[in-house]
C-alpha cells in the first residue's frame, strides 16, 4: 500500500474521538494517558452525553485534560477533585460528572476526598490512572509505587518497613457501600483498551441510572518515570504491576466479586 492509499478515507482504521480537541497531547510518547483520555471521550461521545458532561481535571500529568477533552471542565487543587465533583453533581444532579486522577492525586493527597466521595456514593465516575510514580514532578515515589521500585525519592528502592506498602485503592473503596462499580483495567494493548472502554461505558451508564459511584482504575506505564522504552515499560508493567494490582472487576452492581 502506497502512502497516498493509506490516507484515503476508505482505508482509515482509527481516528480520535470527536470529543478530543485538536490540541496536541502533552504526554510523553508511549504513555497510557492519551489512550485513557481518548477512550473516556469515545464513551461519552457514543453515549451521546457530551453536552451534559462536566469533567474535573486533577494536578499531575493529566492536569491539562481540559485542553484535550472537549467537554465542560474544571481544574481542581491537588487531590480535591472528588470534593469539587461533589459540589458539581449535588447542584447539577442531572449532569454526568467525572474526575480523572493520577495515583498521587487520588491515593496520597486526596485520599480523604476519594474515600468520602465513595462512601457517600456520589453519582459520578472516578477514573484513576495508576502508574506507580509521580510523572509530572519528575519521577518521585507514589503511594502505589511497588516494593523495591526505584524512584527519585526512593533511590534505593521502596522500603516497605519505612515507606509503607503500595496502597490498593480499588480494593479499599470497593468495601464501602457507596461504591456501585469498581474495576481495574489497562490500556496498553488493543485487547486491554477494548476491555477498558467497556468498563468506562458501564461506569457512565451507571451514572445515567443514578446508581452511585463508579470507579475505574487503569494501570498504566510511565516509560519516562520508570526510565524504560515504551515497549519495555509495558512488559515490566505486565510482569510487575499486574501481579500486585490484578486486572478485572472488583465490584459489580454493588456486589463484591
Amino acid at each position, binding site marked *: 500500500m502506497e502512502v497516498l492509499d493509506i490516507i484515503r478515507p476508505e482505508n482509515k482504521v482509527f481516528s480520535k474521538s470527536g470529543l478530543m480537541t485538536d490540541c496536541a497531547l502533552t504526554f510523553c510518547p508511549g504513555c497510557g494517558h492519551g489512550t485513557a483520555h481518548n477512550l473516556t471521550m469515545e464513551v461519552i461521545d457514543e453515549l451521546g452525553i457530551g453536552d451534559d458532561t462536566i469533567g474535573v481535571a486533577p494536578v499531575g500529568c493529566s492536569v491539562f485534560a481540559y485542553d484535550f477533552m472537549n467537554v465542560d471542565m474544571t481544574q*481542581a487543587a491537588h487531590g480535591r477533585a472528588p470534593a469539587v465533583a461533589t459540589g458539581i453533581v449535588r447542584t447539577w444532579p442531572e449532569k454526568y460528572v467525572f474526575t480523572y486522577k493520577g495515583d498521587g492525586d487520588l491515593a496520597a493527597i486526596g485520599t480523604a476526598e476519594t474515600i468520602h466521595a465513595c462512601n457517600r456514593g456520589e453519582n459520578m465516575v472516578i477514573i484513576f490512572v495508576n502508574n506507580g510514580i509521580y510523572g509530572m514532578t519528575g519521577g518521585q515515589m507514589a503511594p502505589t509505587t511497588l516494593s523495591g521500585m526505584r524512584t527519585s525519592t526512593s533511590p534505593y528502592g521502596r522500603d516497605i518497613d519505612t515507606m509503607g506498602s503500595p496502597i490498593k485503592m480499588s480494593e479499599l473503596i470497593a468495601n464501602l457501600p457507596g461504591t456501585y462499580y469498581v474495576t481495574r483495567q489497562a490500556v496498553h494493548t488493543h485487547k486491554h483498551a477494548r476491555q477498558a472502554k467497556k468498563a468506562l461505558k458501564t461506569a457512565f451508564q451507571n451514572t445515567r441510572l443514578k446508581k452511585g459511584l463508579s470507579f475505574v482504575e487503569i494501570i498504566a506505564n510511565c516509560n519516562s518515570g520508570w526510565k524504560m522504552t515504551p515497549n519495555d515499560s509495558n512488559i515490566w508493567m505486565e510482569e510487575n504491576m499486574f501481579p500486585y494490582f490484578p486486572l478485572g472487576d472488583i465490584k459489580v452492581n454493588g456486589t463484591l466479586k
Partner: protein
Amino acid sequence: MKGNEAIAEAAIRAGADAYFGYPITPQSEVIEYLMTERPEERTGMVVLQAESEVAAINMVYGAASAGKRVLTSSSSPGISLKLEGISYMAGAELPGVIVNVVRGGPGLGTIQPSQADYFQAVKGGGHGDYKLYVLAPSSVQEMSDFVGDAFDIAFKYRAPVMILSDGLIGQMMEKVELRPQKERLTDDEVAEKYGSWALTGKKGREHNIITSLYLDPEQMEQKVRKLMKKYDQMEREDMRYETFQTEDADYLIVAYGSSARIAQKSIELARNKGIKVGLLRPITLFPFPKQPLLELADQVKGILSVELNAGQMVEDVRLSTEFKVPVEHFGRTGGIIHTPEEILEALEQKIIKDGSVRHHKTREQSIF
C-alpha cells in the same frame, strides 16, 4: 435569633443553591440550623456536611464552577484549611461566599471571640497575588443582610467574598428583620445567565474551562493584572464604611465588627467627660476606607485602632492616614472582650496624654 442562625436563614432567603461545611465552634449553629430547616424542601437548596473544611471549600469551588450560588462557613483554624481553596477560587475567578466566625489563635487557640484573623482575611491568607472582598458585620442584622450582599458582590466580580464575623456576633441574640425569599435560579436560568463561563454543559457552544493554571509567564502576568483591575474596581465602587459622631471629633476610634459596637459606648462615656471622640467603622475591610481616614486625619489629634487582637488593622490605619497623626492600637486577646471603660482609658493614656509625641509602644504594652 443568633448571629449564626441569621446567616443560615439569610442564605436560604438569598436563593443559595448549596451550603457545604464542617462543624467547628463557635459557628456550628450555621449547619445545624440549615440541617434542621430542611432547605431542600423549602427552596431546593443543598446542604452537605463535608469530611473536612478542605473538602467543603472544594465543594464550593465545584458548585461555583458550575455557576451556582454557594457558601461555606467556618471558624479560624477551619479557615486556615480553606485558604488553599480560596486562593484557587480567586485564581479561577469563581464566585462564592465564605463566612469566618473568628475565634482566638494561633493554633487551636480558644473557642472565645477574637478579631485576630484580620491579616488572614485582608492580606491574602492563601498563596499568590489576590485579595478577598471582606465584609465585617457588627450586628445580627448585618449577619443576615451581608449574606445577600456578599452573593451580589461575588457574582458582580466573579470572586470569592468573605464575611468576617466573630464568636461574639455569631453567638449573640438580637432581633432581625429578614429579607424576603429570593427565588433560586433554575438550571436553565443558570445556563443562560452564566453559560458564557460556567460549566453548565456545552450544548450549543464551545466547551468552557475553569482553571487557575497558566504556565506561560506572559499569560500568568495578564491574569494577575486582570485580578488587580477587579480589586481596583472594588475600591472605586464597593468600599463601605460608616462614621459616628465624627463631625466635631478631636479624637477618632477606628473599629470594626463587635469592637465597633463596644467603642460606641466608649464614645458616649468620653463625651460625658467632655472629650470629643468619633468612630469610623470600616464595613469592608478590603476595600479599606483609606480616603475617609486620610481626610479625618487632618481633623483629629490622634487615632486609636480598637481590635480584639494584638494589633493588625492598626497597620492599615497608619498607612491610610500617612502618619499625619499618632495612631495607636488597643485590644484584648485570648477571648477577653474589652469593656467600653477600658477603651476610654486606653484612649486617654495612649492618645490624649502622650499622643503629641510620636512613638510606638512595644507590642506587649499595646495590648494592655
